[in-house]
């Protein structure tokens, strides 16, 4: 079912202070607390190196469908994870960022569980840890390989980054991609990686709001800009390049077609720029198929992410994979397959 693939090899297999043989012994015969701690330490290191075959050897005790959320506050520092402020099942905090991180990571978890029967980011019940108030006026959010991190924005251009459900979905999907296709974060594979995060981020929003593809706005990060910014959102999947145009930001640089592909060095080869092309392909597919985008279109894309794409996959590989998958799932020559094929043709990836 799941492919096991090794990322590029590194000289240190598991680097932690406690040597693996001690952790293994504790995992086998320690007390319950020791077992849990040893397993989590080994699994954490293995995850950081994408060593899925090691993870496969450990049974993890989180039953499918159970969230384990923890929210920390950085109090404007940068040493992760920060001070614990809300654990799973704890009541609402006074801090809106804490509550947003908690609630939205829960919605993302529920989406993957209900739509794809996926048990958290790693499909093994990985804890969902979030740190808020990272840095000072930090206008960003990111996934660091094991947790989510959110800044408060600068208050001039950007509001707090926990505000938008699709941004939180975007970050968590980076984790999913890490455990599945592990698309390299550079050039076309990196733009695909970014696009997967936008695709599943927007799907979480549409699923939560019960919006069909036709009714949805297809805007990533709508509502994130502060008052007075001339723009709707960070990105438009429907019309890449139109999300904003403000004197302080410039114009949305995303291309909608391969002819405008960004080939420079900024942004790891334009991963947030060129993602516009596969984003638009997903939107066109969903628009042509109709109904809810989290059904057939999402199933095709999710299958590609989990079974077909590889760390070095490029746009053409994604196009070929999704066309093939649509044929397998819905029949050769089906409307679904035609929708996928036409979408990739329209953006200039398929001829």
């Amino acid at each position: 079912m799941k492919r096991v693939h090794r990322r590029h090899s590194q000289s240190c297999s598991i680097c932690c202070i406690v040597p693996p043989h001690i952790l293994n012994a504790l995992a086998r015969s320690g007390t319950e607390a020791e077992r849990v701690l040893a397993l989590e330490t080994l699994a954490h290191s293995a995850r950081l190196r994408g060593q899925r075959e090691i993870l496969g050897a450990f049974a993890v005790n989180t039953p499918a469908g159970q969230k384990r959320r923890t929210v920390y506050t950085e109090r404007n520092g940068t040493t992760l994870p920060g001070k614990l402020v809300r654990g799973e099942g704890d009541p609402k905090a006074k801090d809106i960022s804490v509550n947003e991180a908690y609630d939205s990571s829960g919605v993302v978890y529920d989406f993957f569980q209900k739509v794809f029967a996926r048990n958290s980011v790693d499909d093994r019940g990985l804890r969902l840890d979030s740190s808020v108030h990272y840095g000072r006026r930090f206008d960003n959010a990111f996934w660091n390989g094991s947790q989510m991190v959110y800044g408060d924005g600068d208050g001039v251009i950007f509001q707090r980054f926990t505000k938008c459900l699709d941004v939180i979905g975007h970050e968590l999907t980076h984790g999913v991609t890490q455990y599945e296709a592990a698309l390299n974060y550079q050039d076309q594979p990196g733009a695909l990686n970014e696009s997967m995060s936008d695709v599943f981020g927007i799907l979480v929003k549409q699923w939560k709001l019960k919006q069909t593809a036709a009714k949805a706005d297809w805007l990533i990060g709508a509502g994130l800009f502060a008052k007075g910014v001339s723009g709707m959102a960070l990105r438009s999947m429907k019309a890449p390049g139109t999300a904003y145009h403000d004197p302080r930001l410039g114009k949305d640089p995303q291309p909608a077609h391969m002819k405008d592909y960004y080939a420079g060095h900024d942004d790891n080869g334009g991963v947030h720029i060129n993602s516009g092309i596969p984003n638009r392909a997903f939107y066109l597919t969903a628009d042509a198929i109709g109904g809810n985008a989290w059904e057939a279109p999402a199933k095709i894309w999710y299958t590609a992410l989990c079974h077909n794409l590889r760390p070095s996959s490029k746009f053409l590989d994604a196009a070929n994979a999704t066309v093939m998958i649509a044929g397998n799932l819905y029949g050769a020559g089906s409307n679904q397959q035609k929708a996928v094929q036409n979408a990739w043709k329209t953006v200039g990836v398929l001829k």
Partner: protein
Amino acid sequence: MRITFSRSGGVTGVRLRTTVNEDDLSAPHAAKLRRLVKAADCFRLPKQLAADPKQPDRFQYELTLEDGERRHTITIDEEAATPALLKLLEWLTDLARGGCQDGGRCQV
């Protein structure tokens, strides 16, 4: 000293750019610039500070420093930057965002 600064990446994908000329700064800010550059040992940093693995949605920076005869360009993955370098980058970010006016609110 002159520094050309640019930032790319991040979940927003919004790019920042600015050029800081020591001659155009007030005395306190010029002193701060020199202090930050010295503390980060910029002229001795390698041309590339790359993270492996890369963390998604982190920032990338490019700095070109010119001081008399010396000239040095560094490309930096945020997660690979030293704490001292991060302090310099944070201050330059404030300048690029226009939030660091003379007599104003620079924090670093």
